[in-house]
């Protein structure tokens, strides 16, 4: 297959837009094979392993108190991270898309920072800030506020890692829309908030949905940053990904895969919602034109 693809290479170059059927077929087969081996197969393995001991065992593995606690913490964390990033993301995107100001390009770059930083470093930053030996450690400890090694730290690390998703989706949409509609609303006497909720938000709602879905998927699946700030207290500060690791290292393979399958289910649900939103987005842009 690869040989064929390689041999096909010069042909493709000479007639860039009009490949021979053989070449096209080969490329499609290669692409599908790649997807099957690297994406579909692992997914099947996860579900195969998860149900290896039957549905009853699967249900029992998930009903385990520590696993239930991990599921609960993951849901709470994802909800908090998505809500905060929703607000931050909309604000940041609005600021960047609607205003020209000093430092605007710096802000755009800074929003992307979490993409560039290793998640482990993202976690460590919070330990250095809020840990007992950190900058704010003494003050926090004196007021009995726990951030790292407790759920707030997990939420913070998750917010940090998922920060770009909402803003990144919204900035191009808002920029494409321009300011005319908002200006018209304000000229007609709408207040700032009215303009935002009646004009801006409806215009960007599908872009926003898309950002939320992606942000949520990443928030639930984050491992590295959360692992650093978690403290790994069972039933208290373990999220689903951390619980998967604990179960796997504790020789509970089937239970580990059962938990992993929850994340896989989430991934599939995300894909479905994402396709729906994409479909709406493309339809809307067609309507707009």
């Amino acid at each position: 297959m690869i040989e064929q693809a390689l041999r096909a290479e010069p042909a493709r170059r000479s007639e860039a837009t009009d490949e021979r059927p053989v070449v096209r077929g080969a490329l499609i087969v290669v692409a599908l094979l790649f997807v099957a081996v690297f994406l579909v197969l692992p997914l099947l393995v996860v579900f195969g392993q998860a149900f290896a001991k039957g549905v009853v065992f699967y249900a029992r593995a998930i009903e385990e108190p520590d696993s239930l606690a991990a599921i609960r913490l993951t849901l709470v964390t994802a909800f908090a991270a998505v809500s905060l990033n929703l607000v931050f993301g909309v604000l940041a995107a609005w600021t960047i898309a609607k205003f020209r100001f000093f430092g605007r390009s710096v802000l755009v770059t800074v929003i992307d920072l979490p993409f560039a930083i290793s998640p482990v470093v993202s976690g460590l930053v919070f330990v250095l800030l809020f840990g007992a030996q950190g900058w704010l450690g003494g003050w926090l400890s004196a007021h009995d506020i726990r951030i790292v090694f407790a759920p707030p730290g997990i939420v913070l690390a998750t917010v940090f890692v998922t920060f770009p998703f909402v803003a990144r989706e919204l900035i191009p949409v808002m920029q494409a829309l321009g300011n005319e509609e908002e200006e018209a609303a304000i000229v007609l006497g709408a207040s700032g908030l009215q303009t935002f909720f009646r004009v801006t938000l409806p215009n960007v709602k599908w872009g926003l949905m898309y950002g939320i879905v992606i942000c949520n998927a990443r928030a639930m699946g984050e491992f590295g940053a959360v692992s650093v700030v978690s403290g790994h207290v069972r039933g208290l500060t373990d999220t689903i990904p951390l619980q998967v690791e604990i179960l796997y290292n504790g020789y509970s393979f089937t239970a580990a895969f059962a938990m992993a399958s929850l994340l896989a289910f989430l991934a599939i649900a995300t894909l479905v919602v994402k396709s729906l939103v994409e479909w709406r987005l493309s339809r809307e842009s067609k309507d707009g034109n």
Partner: protein
Amino acid sequence: MAAQRNIRSLASIVALLATFVLAGVPAYASGNSETQASAAGSTGTVKLLNVSYDPTRELYEDINAAFEKYWKDKTGQTVEIEQSHGGSGAQARAVIDGLEADVVTLALAYDIDAIAAHGLISPDWQSRLPDNSTPYTSTIVFLVRAGNPKGIKDWDDLAKPGVSVITPNPKTSGGARWNYLAAWGYALKHDGGDQAQAEAFVRAVYKNVPVLDSGARGSTTTFVQRGIGDVLVAWENEAFLALKEQGAGSFQIVVPSVSILAEPPVAVVDKNVDKHGTRAVAEAYLRFLYTPEAQTIEARNFYRPRLQSVASAFSSQFPKVELLTIDQFGGWAAAQKTHFADGGIFDQIYQVQ
């Protein structure tokens, strides 16, 4: 004009958001102190956090269940013990950074000394409980694949070319430091105490290490599940557990001619128990580890018990082997400084590769 309006509404959203965040933090904090207040009471449920090293997860699941029953019978109080596991050095670091452990049960004394150095534990902690505050001991053995295809019998087989050795990172793992020192001790014994030759020997062993996991359990997973390596240098209890979980058919234990007496100590974290009001139950928990009941649980989980009566009941389980002690390396403070501190011998050995 429009821009001004926009800015004003932006400001109001920011204010709204700030209120939300600021309101959220104290709400959480007060939630925390509430649980602690109830923990301090003698009638309600009391919670203890045991921050431990990597291979003890199964041990403390059993111990905790036994202690919860023991404490309920004795005082009528319900105690819930929470567990956290990871590489010993990494766990010590987390406690220093604010993980509020009531007790620490780590792989070696140096890691508890590190916590004590930050003022969380009294410096004399190791003399507060019997046997250097180590209720159980272990040693270092080899786990090889069934039939021992590479014919590994002793430490010198680990230095031979073509043998792949799995051991965790001595920087983060306590077990890894015992492994390292056991190899070093073997070399000293065979080369008449020559430090330079011992270093060359240990360097040759680490040349055969393809991956350093951060904790002992990570290395076991690498060797057992991922099938990497010819020999796993492991805690005796970890090797036995792998045999038990994986079936004796796929692996076997090889006991070297000389190994090290590994003493994983326990301590109450003074600053945290005083803050939580849990000192009494935390101290009782650690003393419980020395009782015949707990010693039997420890032996069943393949830790060598201190209590003679339990030790003789399980004597067939634990092979007799010549054991070096940490004192032969000048104690943990000296061993840490020479071998594992930044720029120490381990760094030199592992960097030149």
